[in-house]
C-alpha cells in the first residue's frame, strides 16, 4: 500500500498542481475553491500516507486514513462512471479514463487497505505475546 500511495503522489507531484486540479474539476462535483484546495493538498497527503505506511508508524490510524481516502476516491469514480462521464481517473497521472478496469483496481486497493486497517486494529487488541 505504501508503494501505491508513493507512486500516486509521484505521478501528481511531477506535474504542475493545476493539472491535477483540472482532473478533479473534470468530475464536475466540487466548487472551484475546493478543487483548487484539493489539487494542492491531495498529492502531499498521499506522499505523507505513503511514508507513514512504509515506516509502519501508527499503522492503525494511517491505514484507516488511507482506507477513508481510497473510499472517497472510489465513491467519486463510481458516481462518475454511473453518470456516464468520460473523465480521466486521475489516480496515477492522466491518460487513464474511468472504466470497469480502473474501478476494479481501485476497489481491490480499497479492500486491501481495509484489510490492513482491520489487521492493524486486531493486532492492537491482542494481548502481548499472543
Amino acid at each position, binding site marked *: 500500500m505504501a508503494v501505491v500511495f508513493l507512486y500516486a503522489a509521484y505521478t501528481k507531484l511531477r506535474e504542475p498542481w493545476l493539472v491535477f486540479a*483540472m482532473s478533479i474539476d473534470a468530475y464536475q462535483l466540487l466548487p*472551484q475553491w475546493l478543487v483548487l484546495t484539493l489539487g494542492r493538498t491531495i498529492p502531499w497527503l498521499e506522499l505523507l500516507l505513503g511514508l507513514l505506511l512504509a515506516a509502519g508508524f501508527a499503522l492503525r490510524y494511517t491505514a484507516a486514513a488511507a482506507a477513508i481516502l481510497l473510499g472517497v476516491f472510489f465513491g467519486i469514480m463510481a458516481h462518475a462512471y454511473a453518470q456516464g462521464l*468520460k473523465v480521466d481517473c486521475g489516480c496515477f497521472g492522466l491518460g487513464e479514463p474511468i472504466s470497469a478496469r480502473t474501478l476494479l483496481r481501485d476497489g481491490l486497493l480499497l479492500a486491501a487497505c481495509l484489510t490492513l486497517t482491520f489487521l492493524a486494529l486486531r493486532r492492537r487488541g491482542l494481548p502481548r505475546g499472543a
Partner: protein
Amino acid sequence: MRMATLLLALLAATLASPAAQVKGRGTPGAPIQLDVYSDYQCPACKALYERTLVPLMADYVDKGKVYLIHHEFPLPMHPHAMEAACYACAASRVGKYEQAGDVLFRTQESWAASGKVDQTVCSILTPVEAQKVRALAKDPAIIAEVQQDIQAGRNANVSSTPTLILTHRSKQYRVPGGAGYEILRRFIDQLLSQ
C-alpha cells in the same frame, strides 16, 4: 533542364491533389500550442468546444498567446463521426473548417440522431462550395487525412475524446478535457508568466 522539368512536375502534382492542411487557429509561433483531439459526435467534445474552446479562442488564441490545432479523432462507437470528420476536413479546402466544426458541434444532437451530416455542413456553404465539399468528403485524400490525424493521436497515446495536449517550451502537459475553462485559464496564465 531536367531539374526544371522535375520541379514543374512536383508543382503540378501539388496543385492537383487536395493538400493536407494544418487545422490551426492563431499564431503558429505563439508561446503555447494546444493540440485538441476530438470527435464531432462526442457529447464531451461538444461541451469542451462550447464551454472552453470558444472563450479560449477569444481570450488567448486570437490574441496570439495560444496556437490551437484541431485533430480529428472519430471514435468507432459513434456511427456518423467519421463522416463528420471528413466533411469538416473537406470544408477546410474551401476555407470553412471552423464554420463547419462550429455547426457540427452546435447541432450535434440533431445530426447524430438523423445522420444528416451532409445537410448540416452544407447549410453553412454556398451551393458551389457545397458541391465541392460533397465531392471532397469522399475523396481518398481527405479520408487519408483523417486517418493520419487518428494515427497521430494513437502515437500520442490518445485513447478517448476530448484529449488536450498543451506544449510550452518543449514540455508537454496532458490536460483533462472535462476541466472547466477557469482552471485551464489559470494554468495557461501561470505558464505565460514563467
